[in-house]
């Protein structure tokens, strides 16, 4: 159904007279200046990969998304999608948002309140001049793909947060964009629905062929959903790399604090509150009672909540004790981040004094302990 629709990507290169669009990804090299704020971006995003855009409030993450979809023009530089310029200040090219093959899921979803779910999803096709019947048929196909068929005639006001999020995703995907942008896609959801929606979103993003940019300031979201991370602080890219690299070798205090989280997957035994981890090892956790799905559980553990010992600690208070070997150490402001091979592997933040006391160096055998009350199932 949807394949019959003229995609906006085709419309775009027809307008530029380019014979064929090759999926080479999204290349941004430009600046946005507004008053005293300056955003300096240099990104090369491959098709089929999800890039997490991480940063504190006011860092310029949302501005970055707005420049890609054309709602905010660049002050200098250029943006190219699959080789086609969307914005090029020197060449005086600016493709307006309605002609960019870029789908956007806004943080507040921005569903049209006067249209039902089907009308919202069909909107993109209607705006491009597709007839009412074909647009509805194409919308229905997308509703089915995102498991929304039963809600087709509902108004946005009658949807739950999770449903509205899926409708916003369906509406963006229905335009068959060449790139997909998501602005804090899970921020408006309550903690419980967030888990289910996150898994669902992950599955949908995996099947998207073009580059995906996702703004977030949630470490777990970034670790679970993103293939690559780009950290923006004060309008500048301060770090980039895989989520694991960024977590292991944070370059700034912000990243260290934000990505300072050990994330494990596993299956939960409800009776003992123990999660059997996929990579080996097991952890006693808190918060397991609220979980619906016991087969796929995420466990988070802050590096500051783990303690290192030279010898096996007595088992009185901390419930999780395991042995490991120091793999690497990274100074981190006033602390040292120690990477320990397990199982389970862990990042541990310790004081320089503790490093000296325990004579830590790569290869040192250590014991790790963490309280169950600080080991969260999510």
């Amino acid at each position, binding site marked *: 159904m949807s394949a019959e629709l003229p995609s906006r990507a085709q419309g775009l290169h027809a307008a530029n007279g380019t014979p064929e669009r090759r999926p080479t990804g999204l290349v941004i090299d430009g600046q946005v200046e507004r008053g005293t704020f300056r955003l300096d971006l240099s990104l090369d995003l491959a098709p089929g990969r999800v890039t997490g855009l991480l940063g504190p409030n006011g860092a310029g993450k949302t501005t970055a998304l707005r420049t890609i979809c*054309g709602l905010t023009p660049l002050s200098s530089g250029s943006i190219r999608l699959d080789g086609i310029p969307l914005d090029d200040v020197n060449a005086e090219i600016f493709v307006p948002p309605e002609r960019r093959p870029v789908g956007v899921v806004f943080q507040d979803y921005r569903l049209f309140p006067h249209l039902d779910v089907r009308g919202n999803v069909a909107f993109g096709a209607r705006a491009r001049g597709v007839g009412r019947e074909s647009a509805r048929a194409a919308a229905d196909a997308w509703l089915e793909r995102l498991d929304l068929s039963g809600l087709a005639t509902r108004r946005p006001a009658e949807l739950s947060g999770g449903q509205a999020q899926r409708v916003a995703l369906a509406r963006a995907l229905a335009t068959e964009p060449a790139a997909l942008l998501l602005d804090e896609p899970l921020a408006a959801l309550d903690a419980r629905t967030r888990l289910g929606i996150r898994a669902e979103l992950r599955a949908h993003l995996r099947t998207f062929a073009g580059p995906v940019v996702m703004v977030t300031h949630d470490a777990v979201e970034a670790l679970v959903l993103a293939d690559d991370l780009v950290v923006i602080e004060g309008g500048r890219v301060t770090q980039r790399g895989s989520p694991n690299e960024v977590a292991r070798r944070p370059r700034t205090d912000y990243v260290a604090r934000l990505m300072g989280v050990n994330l494990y997957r596993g299956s939960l035994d409800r009776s003992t509150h123990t999660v059997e981890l996929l990579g080996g090892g097991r952890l006693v956790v808190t918060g397991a009672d609220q979980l619906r799905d016991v087969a796929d559980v995420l466990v988070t553990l802050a590096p500051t909540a783990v303690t290192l010992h030279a010898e096996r600690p007595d088992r009185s208070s901390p419930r999780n004790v395991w042995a490991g070997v120091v793999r690497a150490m990274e100074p981190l402001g006033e602390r040292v981040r120690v990477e320990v091979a397990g199982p389970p592997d862990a990042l541990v933040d310790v004081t320089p004094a503790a490093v000296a006391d325990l004579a830590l160096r790569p290869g040192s055998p250590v014991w790790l302990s963490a309280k169950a009350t600080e080991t969260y199932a999510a």
Partner: protein
Amino acid sequence: MARATARDRRRLPAALAVPAVAGAAFLVLPLTGLLARAPWTDLGSLLRSPVVADALRLSLLCATLATGLSALLGIPLAWVLARSTSRFVALLRALVTVPLVLPPVVGGVALLLTLGRTGVVGQYLDRWFGISLPFTTAGVVVAEAFVAMPFLVVTVEGAFRSADRGLEEAAATLGASRLFALRHVTLPLIVPSLLAGAVLSWARALGEFGATITFAGNFPGRTQTMPIAVYLAMESDPGAAIALALVLLVVSVAVLAALRDRWLPRGGAV
């Protein structure tokens, strides 16, 4: 509703109560006077008399056409005023709202000098198209629209300003041109304001007197609208004048009722 506590029921000072009662009487008494002197028994036949029926028909027609013209030109104007970032927009806004405060008779004179047979624009309308607006029914529509359109523009501009720009942005990212987004997103969302603006300008057009009589004159059946008919009938046929005045009063009350949610605070002492 506010709870009536002892504190609320304290006596009003006479220095305020007396002029307040007088003020209310001043506004309400003339209306009761009109109702008291209304020729209730002859009302049916009076409203069917040719002069009254013609004026009524012409007024309704012209006010409706003037409202249509105001909407046709006023909605795009309101959109430009709300969305343009040009420095001249503030000046333009001031200029287009001048008719709100201008004495209507001045508007009539201005229209005559501009669109009259020898007027700045009118002479070309006459010479090139053979169109002459003064003293025609079309002239009535033009005069009423001139006075009434600012009401619609001001109302709709406010609605455009407070409309969620985020939805227009979302529409743009879905491939909608600004015109498509206006038609399919913004306008449907501001329908209540559109209706309020239309009702307001329709009521204003219906009551228009000064600009109409100056620009379009007073020809029964062609340019003699209800307010003009009321004014003239007061000398020759007071009964008909009162009947017409009653119709206008009923329309005014109906407009107030239609817009009450907009203007009268809920739970207020009305």
